[in-house]
């Protein structure tokens, strides 16, 4: 690194160097988060578990879910859990399809185990629907633990049992499971999501277990003790788009621990179009902006009672939250240096991408080892997660001589030669790519909206699925700054999810 700082006399030059290296911070932080996972072998909650089967009320919010609800209820009733200690409460959010008929029929099929709760005025969002059921369930002493889920997700038979065992420890207020993308056969986008969930859930939540601070309980798989629900006020936050994260934070602020159980698997269907994914993720990302602002008094202020103020938790949170900013700032600084001091910019470009390459190699190989069953299905999406162009830049910075030799050979074969202009243009594109990859991936959404959906995979594979999510995060800043309306867009489900054999 000495060469990039050598002779950086002015403050401005120093600032540019630091700004460029900001581009490596998020992946380096992600690597640190992955490094912590190994400690889960010695620092986990398994020692404090016990066979424990509290009376569980399963709360299922449902709006026009007739197509999937019947099968979901059958599977829930069939979970490996004592039947007399399990009840399914379906909160029908003023559905206009056959949802009420389906739930009533299941109520007759499983007397005393399936309860139909109807909201006549619906469409206010998931949190309102959950609160309707929560009020009624808490009024009754029967429930000892509450499982909040989505109508279409599939719980593996032993998953609930594996979650409740953690509640044997009174310090634990909530438990979440490993949500996996389970669309069959699933398209390229769903395979990207499947890989993303290895990194964001199986990996990140294990390291959060180690650190003792959980960022978010999965919306489709959160088990709460009654004591915890009462401690957080007996209701879910309705003022934001991230009710799951608010519940997670409030649980920890109430002094209760949140545990991720990686062996409890829940299968979910994720959007198969960029437009659908964009809607879902924009809601999540706007929710994260709201959480960041609402809990601003917590960040970087370590407390004995909970881990939410820990420096490590804040660093991981903000590295993800500010990822698009880091990427844009890094690119702009590198381009500025290109014109001011090319030699320095070239050295910095290499350092930046070498750090990114090492992080990418470590994260990708380790993530695939964490969930080999999923990795077998999505290995191509794992490799191309940052986008094909970024992978090429990584290959170039790792093996410049090999890469240049191959380019020369390719040039000789095709008759294309590199001149001064093509070289400069290539360097400029490579320098700006950290910022440019986001709009390129975003073009995939634009193509879909204009009826050219066949072009979308091209843009996502080129720009990257990770950068697509960064574009969503960036858009969430804009929406929140504009004070855009908080609209609950329900993710469309087709019932194509199943447990792979």
């Amino acid at each position, binding site marked *: 690194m000495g060469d990039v700082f050598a002779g950086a006399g002015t403050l401005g030059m120093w600032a540019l160097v630091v700004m460029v290296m900001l581009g490596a911070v998020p992946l380096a932080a992600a690597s640190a988060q*992955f*490094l912590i*996972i*190994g400690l*889960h*072998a010695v620092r*986990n909650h*398994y020692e404090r*578990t*016990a*066979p424990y089967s509290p009376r569980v009320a399963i709360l299922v919010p449902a709006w026009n879910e007739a197509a999937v609800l019947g099968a979901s209820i059958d599977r829930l009733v069939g979970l490996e859990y004592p039947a007399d200690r399990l009840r399914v409460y379906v909160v029908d959010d003023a559905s206009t399809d056959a949802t009420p008929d389906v739930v009533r029929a299941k109520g007759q099929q499983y007397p005393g185990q399936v309860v139909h709760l109807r909201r006549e005025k619906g469409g206010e969002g998931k949190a309102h629907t959950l609160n309707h059921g929560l009020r009624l369930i808490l009024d009754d002493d029967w429930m000892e633990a509450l499982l909040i889920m989505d109508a279409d997700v599939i719980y593996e038979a*032993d998953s609930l049992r*594996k979650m409740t*065992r953690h509640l044997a420890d009174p310090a634990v207020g909530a438990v979440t499971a490993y949500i996996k993308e389970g669309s069959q056969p699933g398209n390229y986008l769903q395979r990207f999501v499947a890989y993303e969930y290895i990194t964001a859930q199986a990996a990140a939540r*294990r390291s959060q277990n180690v650190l003792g601070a959980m960022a978010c309980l999965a919306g489709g798989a959160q088990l709460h003790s009654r004591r915890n629900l009462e401690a957080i006020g007996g209701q879910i936050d309705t003022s934001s788009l991230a009710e799951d994260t608010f519940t997670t934070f409030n649980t920890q602020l109430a002094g209760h621990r949140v545990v991720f159980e*990686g*062996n409890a698997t829940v299968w979910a269907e994720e959007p198969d179009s960029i437009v659908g994914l964009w809607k879902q993720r924009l809601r999540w990302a706007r929710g994260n902006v709201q959480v960041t602002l609402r809990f601003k008094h917590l960040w970087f202020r370590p407390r004995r009672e909970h881990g939410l103020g820990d420096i490590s938790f804040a660093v991981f949170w903000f590295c993800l939250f500010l990822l698009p900013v880091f990427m844009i700032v890094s690119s702009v600084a590198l381009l500025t240096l290109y014109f001011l001091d090319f030699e320095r910019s070239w050295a910095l470009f290499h350092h930046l991408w070498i750090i990114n390459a*090492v992080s990418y*190699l*470590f994260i990708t*190989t*380790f993530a695939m*080892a*964490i969930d080999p069953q999923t990795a077998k299905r999505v290995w191509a999406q794992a490799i191309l997660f940052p986008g094909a162009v970024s992978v090429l830049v990584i290959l170039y910075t*790792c*093996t*410049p*001589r*090999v890469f240049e030799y191959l380019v020369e050979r390719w040039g000789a074969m095709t008759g294309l030669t590199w001149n001064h202009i093509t070289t400069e243009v290539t360097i400029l594109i490579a320098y700006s790519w950290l910022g440019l990859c986001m709009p390129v991936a975003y073009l995939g959404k634009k193509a879909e909206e204009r009826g050219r959906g066949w072009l979308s995979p091209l843009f996502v594979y080129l720009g990257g699925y990770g950068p697509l999510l960064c574009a969503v995060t960036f858009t969430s800043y804009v929406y929140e700054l504009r004070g855009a309306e908080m609209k609950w867009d329900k993710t469309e489900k087709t019932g194509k999810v199943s447990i792979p054999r």
Partner: protein
Amino acid sequence: MNDQHHCDAQHRDEIDAAKQEERRLLICELIAIVAVVAFVLVRQRWLL
């Protein structure tokens, strides 16, 4: 009584399996670290 015994045995087996899985991840992590370090060394020595 039998039920309780079965539950306890099942719980012990599942916790043992969970711990074994965490140990597998630790080994995978160590292998991934060694692979990355080896790659960086190979790159410095032969690929630059």
